[in-house]
């Protein structure tokens, strides 16, 4: 059973359809990147999953519990980190976490131990007596993540956690999220920084204009879309001759020089790739490198979306 299952969710704000029949699932121990252009419906979907909005149609299940049937039970299983996290003035880190631990009904030694654990996990222990107002954005994000973990939720929904962070803070956050997935938590994370997500996520869900365009691993989506995969070829002979030979072969699209070799796009089957290699040999060329390149998240995203906004 998926830890988080979005089932055919539709949400309208007046005439605007913010989310249109969205469906996807997140498995325990996996990180799913939720990507889409601005205004695509990411935050609305996440807020519905977090019980903060109600879907007009469809449902979201957390460990099989519906956000409609039992939002309180869902909240016990869920950790939600909104894009605009809340901070209290004149409050130290420890007081902030202690307050939320109390708000989650943690009591006595359990509460104190849990606050220490999340401070330790997010490496904020040395700053426990610091006021929140004096923290950098990166530290505040970490604190918000610590707060999200207080009640040990099995599902985490992180809305743009890396927004506005410097490269070091991003790497640290990525490591934290990876460690959480390693603990078996299902994580849905949205971000505009696709390279960041590519390094972090086991799978993605792409949304545009409220509709889910694709879900799964980047590789499976690439295969499913039959996107042209760039293939790098290097031969013992001259690269110009290689380029000409490639362009004459069936199934080769857009060959261009790159360093000592040539890159061409191939959208066909493995058989047609083998035919191309055989064609090069027939043409008297001696390949020393013939490498399909992995499709990047950015390429997949750009192929799937048209930049539509609502």
């Amino acid at each position, binding site marked *: 059973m998926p830890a988080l299952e979005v089932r055919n969710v539709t949400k309208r704000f*007046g005439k605007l359809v913010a989310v249109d029949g969205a469906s996807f699932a997140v498995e325990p121990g996996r990180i799913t990147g939720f990507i889409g252009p601005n205004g695509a419906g990411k935050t609305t979907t996440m807020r519905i999953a*977090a*019980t*903060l909005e*109600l879907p007009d149609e469809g449902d979201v299940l957390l460990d099989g519990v519906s956000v*409609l*049937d*039992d*939002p*309180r039970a869902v*909240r*016990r299983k*869920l950790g*939600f980190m*909104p894009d*605009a*996290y*809340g*901070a*209290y*003035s*004149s*409050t130290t880190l420890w*007081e902030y976490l*202690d*307050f*939320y631990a*109390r*708000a*989650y*009904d943690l*009591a*006595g030694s359990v*509460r*104190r131990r849990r606050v220490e654990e999340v401070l330790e996990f997010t490496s904020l222990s040395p700053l426990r007596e610091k*006021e929140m107002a004096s923290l950098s954005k990166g530290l505040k994000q970490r604190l918000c993540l610590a*707060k999200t973990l207080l009640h040990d939720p099995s599902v985490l929904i992180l809305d743009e956690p890396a927004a506005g962070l410097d490269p070091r803070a991003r790497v640290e956050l990525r490591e934290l999220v990876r460690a959480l997935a390693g603990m078996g938590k299902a994580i849905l994370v949205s971000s505009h920084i696709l390279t960041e997500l590519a390094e972090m996520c086991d799978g993605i869900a792409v949304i545009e204009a409220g509709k889910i365009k694709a879900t799964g691993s980047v590789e499976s989506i690439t295969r499913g879309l039959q996107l042209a995969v760039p293939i790098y070829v290097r031969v013992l002979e001259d690269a110009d001759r290689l380029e000409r030979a490639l362009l004459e072969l069936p199934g080769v699209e857009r060959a261009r020089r790159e360093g000592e070799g040539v890159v061409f796009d191939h959208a066909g089957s493995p058989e047609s790739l083998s035919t191309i290699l055989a064609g090069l040999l027939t043409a008297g060329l001696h390949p020393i490198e013939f490498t399909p390149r992995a499709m990047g998240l950015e390429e997949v995203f750009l192929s799937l979306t048209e930049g539509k906004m609502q």
Partner: protein
Amino acid sequence: MSATSDRWNPILLKEVRQALRGKMFAFLFPATVLVGVGLAIAVLIDSYPRSNMGPQVFLPVILVLGIAALGLVPFSSFQSMGAEWDEGTHDLLVLSHLSPTRIVLGKLLTASVESGLYFAAFLPILLFTFLLNGVALQDVLFLVGMLYCASLSMSAIAMSLAGLTRVRFLRVVLLAVLAGIGFLALLGGYELAEQFVLRGRGLGSSFSADAVLAVTTLVFGPGILAFAFAATRIAHPEDDRSGPVRIACTAVLVMTLAGLSWGVLRSGSGMPTYIVAVVVGVLASIFAVFFVTEPERLPRRCAHRIPTNAIRALLLTPFLPGGGRGVIWWFLQLVIVAIWASALESVYPMTISFRDPWSPETFGRWCAFMAYFVVYLAGFSLALAPLCKRSYGPLAARIILPSVAVLSMVLPMFLGFLFDEPRWQHGHHPLSPFDIIDGDGRSGVRIMALLVAFLVLLANAPRLARSVQEVLAASRARRAVLTRIGIEAPRAV
């Protein structure tokens, strides 16, 4: 503190910690105490060596305390509530295990602590005035106690106002409204204190009993309502945002009626019960405007909290959201008022200042008067029900409905001026319910009003039936779900 405070409201702890570290309280508290002490010393020096200096010192000091209790403390509550929207912590709070009621209660407890600190600082000075002669100790304690309660009530009002909107500009307007209410409360409180300590009308006098009754109602009634309203403002739109306010309204109604009974029985004379009953009924009708204009359907998250027992679900029906159930709630209030009036009248018949209140003539008069409210509330809310389904509908209906009622009374008066009809100019026209009470020989209009009200009730019958059926269906559905997942066995009803 951390180890022994597990049962404390988390909001109270957090806000006390914030206040202790914050600059506002750290500056305002000593400044206010200094002003109070300084004023007391100045008045003392100025009044010396009079024999009864108590009132001269007491009044300015309680005025300063009043400014703190009715101004500074509610302002702090207003800011605290508004900050939840501004600082983006509202969502995080909603996702925690804290219920809206606990959140608002926590903020109210914070106000009580803050207010308590002011009172602790001022009480020695106020008690000292007793030693200066001229002020009775019980009066000091009563006035201080009432001021403390008024401070909490004002804080609840402040929170409900702050919860009205997330728009900062509008909140500034609401802050001005709060300041206006605080100012009026301060003036009223000061006048009461003056009556008690300067005019010798303190506890034990005939004035004080009525004053206690009026002040208690004015302090606790709005406070209870504001508390319930503030809690609903924090709740999710699809949660029950109506029930707590309905329950609070009914509680205030019962409290008011109890107070009135005590006042009537104590004084031995007074207004006829009928008049009081109708005034209270009209007040309940004003609150009912908010409930009868709610969307008809039960909010989705509310349906899951309806009792599985059908009888309990039925009893809860008037207190559940929905326009039809709002009409039922209103009827319930009228029934409570009618029972109260009948009971009081049977125990203590008050025929002194009113001609035979039980005569069919008088009874018919009041029934016809209330018939107008049936038309306004049940009739117009039924007509506006389709509008109330839309997001802006309830607000629009809440403007339209009273406007129609007022216009129907005022417009004929203008027509009276236009067509030179003196009776209409003075409000004596068939659309005015007050003419029914005042005027003699209006039996035709009365019968017409009753007939129209009867037709409105007939038209409302399907709506009311649907609203009850919806509750019973939700109760059955919940019972089925709980049985399916094995939480609760079905109960025989």
